[in-house]
């Protein structure tokens, strides 16, 4: 009896060891490139110009690569500022517009409602890559080509199908009684939306905001085409220019410090708000 118990325990221990060995190994594989890049960004410039073996700095910790990065073009903070402005504005505008539209589609009856909803949702089928040239011309007509507001409007439009879908579902999940009660109390529609409904759909707002931030912070192709003035570049466009050698010999340490600057907000945001991110992912998956 005790022998059999010992055998079971041994088998369990073996299974657990194997499971953790695989888990650790696979996790390491996926994290390694990020860690490698992070480590090289803290090497002195001369050391960063040699193969990263070993990956960690041997000649001491240094922020030289970050200092070199800061000097590119009109200064890296301009480009980081552009990226941040675009991402923040995209988040705010996307949230406001999808909040209003989600509420409208969830709670009101009006002519052509379903047509409009299907129209908005079905634009996910159309790749924006195929309408870049007309977008370029339209923005030029509106005087918004090569401006940050112009690119924000494009990003917002791209995120609307997903965001409106999320927000309508969020409002659908709120019982109608809550609104009726507030209306009896004499609250105006907007006051009620802000004070009563907003707190209830906040998880949906968080999901919409995270997706809008990550996508607009990381977007490359539209920014590459629509922002022609070097001062207006966002980080991905600027760093791709640095990598292609447009600013002289490529300083790989500086490029990796730029990669860190681009990755850090995404990783931080994901680790902090993972729950809302995965929710959005699975909501999209089951639709």
């Amino acid at each position, binding site marked *: 009896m005790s022998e059999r118990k010992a055998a079971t325990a041994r088998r369990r221990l073996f299974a657990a060891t194997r499971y953790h060995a695989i888990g650790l190994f696979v996790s390491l594989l996926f994290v390694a490139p990020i860690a490698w890049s992070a480590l090289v960004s803290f090497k002195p410039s001369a050391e960063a110009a040699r193969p990263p073996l070993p990956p960690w700095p041997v000649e001491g910790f240094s922020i030289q690569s970050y200092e070199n990065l800061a000097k590119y073009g009109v200064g890296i903070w301009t480009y980081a500022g552009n990226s941040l402005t675009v991402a923040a504005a995209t988040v705010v505008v996307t949230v406001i517009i999808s909040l209003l539209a989600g509420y409208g589609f969830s709670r009101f009856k009006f002519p052509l409602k379903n047509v409009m909803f299907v129209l908005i949702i079905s634009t996910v089928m159309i790749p924006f890559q195929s309408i870049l040239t*007309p977008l370029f011309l339209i923005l030029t007509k509106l005087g918004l080509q090569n401006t940050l507001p112009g690119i924000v409007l494009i990003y917002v439009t791209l995120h609307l199908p997903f965001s409106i879908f999320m927000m309508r579902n969020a409002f659908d999940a709120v019982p109608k009684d809550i609104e009726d009660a507030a209306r009896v109390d004499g609250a105006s529609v907007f006051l009620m939306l802000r004070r009563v409904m907003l707190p209830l759909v906040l998880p949906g707002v968080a999901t919409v905001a995270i997706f809008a931030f990550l996508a607009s912070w990381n977007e490359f192709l539209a920014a590459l085409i629509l922002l022609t003035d070097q001062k207006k570049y966002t980080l*991905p466009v600027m760093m791709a220019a640095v990598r292609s050698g447009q600013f002289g010999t490529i300083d790989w340490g500086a490029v990796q410090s730029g*990669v860190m600057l681009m990755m850090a907000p995404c990783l931080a945001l994901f680790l902090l708000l993972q729950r809302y991110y995965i929710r959005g992912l*699975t909501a999209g998956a089951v639709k």
Partner: protein
Amino acid sequence: MTQSNPAKQRSSGRRGTRLRRQQLAGLLFVAPAVLLVIVFFLVPLGMAFWMSLHNWPLLGRPRFIGLTNYLNLMNDQRFWNAMRFTGYYTVIVTIVIFAVAFPLALFAEKARPMIKVYRTAIFLPVVVGFGSASLLWAWLMNVDVGLFSPLAYRLGLTEKPVNLLASFDTTFWSIIVMVVWKTAGFNMIILLTGLQGISTEVQEAARIDGASSWQRFRRITLPLMRRTIALALILSVAGSVLAFDQFYIIADGGPQNSTVTAVYWIFSQSFVSFRLGYGAAMSMVLLAILVTISVVQLRLLRTPEGA
């Protein structure tokens, strides 16, 4: 509503006004979204088609040329090269992503100690952008200061450091590895949701009936996951057909333009050579391909599970 008989209308007059106000309010709520979609999606879509029928330089007057752009496309060897390469890349990368993501999903499915940590680690590359990931891998792939070539050389696997970007195959497979690293976590989570949707009772019943784990996977798991697999497949295919960032940043379309994708080709025709009409014609072809994929997706997703 306004055509109902007068008596009824009078009695429901106040309700009618309220109804109209309700309708107006609803329209106002959705108006900004509808406006944006019209101005930045529908109008450009119509324009893209219109432009594809023209010789449309960046400056100067567009000239109507009918279907000439499309006919020229058919005879353009570089267009076919880009299409062929995009198709090749899509097929290979999708197979490799699934070959990696499916085992990962099976591994990460059950709630076990530390599983959240492992899942998070595998998922991390998904949230960084393709731009940053490409810049990171461009460095790892560099022959002088990167990781792969010097490491292979120091381990004695190669006689001298190999420039991975010098030949098509090494460039292509390095980028495949990078894309798999970046997207496997995403597909893992999608497949995971499908796996968790299968009731444990069914699996348990099959186990008691003496089905082996392979039989259970083949006869129960796979059929019940059809919808999820279709979804992951379509997302992967659509994403790959539109690939651009990694080929532009890492390989610059090289060596010898052998890694120019469809979107890359549109980009260079429209915004490097400024043949806007020609680029638009190519865009319409790409659009047709993507819409076809979406329609197939809807078809596959509508069929009931396990049918």
